């Protein structure tokens, strides 16, 4: 079974703190993603990575950065946490192979609920 783990289920931080969210997958997947999930907005893509040391901005990258030093690990960094970054953060991974019109499955971690006070 594919397993995606996230370092914390719950996290409380103060405004201005630097926050690290860690994600590890054990299936040798090429692609990894960070989303935030807010009620009524669904999941929104923050950053993604197609390979080690590669990163691409998603739809809402402002206020975030990422690091992918090893294939299995993808970190999300909040340089200076703000209250509007209070949210559920989900990490996902998937393989690169994509045959024709078919989509491929993303595997999600359980999420980190971050509260910034």
């Amino acid at each position, binding site marked *: 079974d594919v397993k*995606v783990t996230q370092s914390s289920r719950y996290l409380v931080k103060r405004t201005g703190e630097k926050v690290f969210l860690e994600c590890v997958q054990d299936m040798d997947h090429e692609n990894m993603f960070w989303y935030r999930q807010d009620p009524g907005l*669904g999941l929104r*893509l923050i950053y*993604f990575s197609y390979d080690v040391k590669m990163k691409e901005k998603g739809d809402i990258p402002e206020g975030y950065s990422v690091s992918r030093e090893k294939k299995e690990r993808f970190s999300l960094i909040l340089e200076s946490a703000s209250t509007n970054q209070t949210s559920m953060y989900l990490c*996902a991974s998937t393989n690169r192979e994509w045959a024709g019109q*078919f*989509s491929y499955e993303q595997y999600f971690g*359980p999420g980190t609920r971050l509260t910034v006070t």
Partner: protein
Amino acid sequence: TQLLEQSPQFLSIQEGENLTVYCNSSSVFSSLQWYRQEPGEGPVLLVTVVTGGEVKKLKRLTFQFGDARKDSSLHITAAQPGDTGLYLCAYDSWGKLQFGAGTQVVVTP
């Protein structure tokens, strides 16, 4: 603005009832995915629909992709409390998933 509109936003039903949730768009998709997210967990893929008019069944869940490949529906027959969760549709945009806002389904015993 989200490309995928899901309705209703919230649905609360009794065990044994049927329900249908919808995923609509004005755009044409090569495929759509349906995920279910249970409380405290990440989303899990239920099905991918690919062909216009396609119907896929997963036990009591029936998924349909519209003929024009612009919309999809999920029908649950005889819902059970274990069906409680957030149902999300998504399309694949060059390896990135774009999600609808989801339908929260609550099935009470």
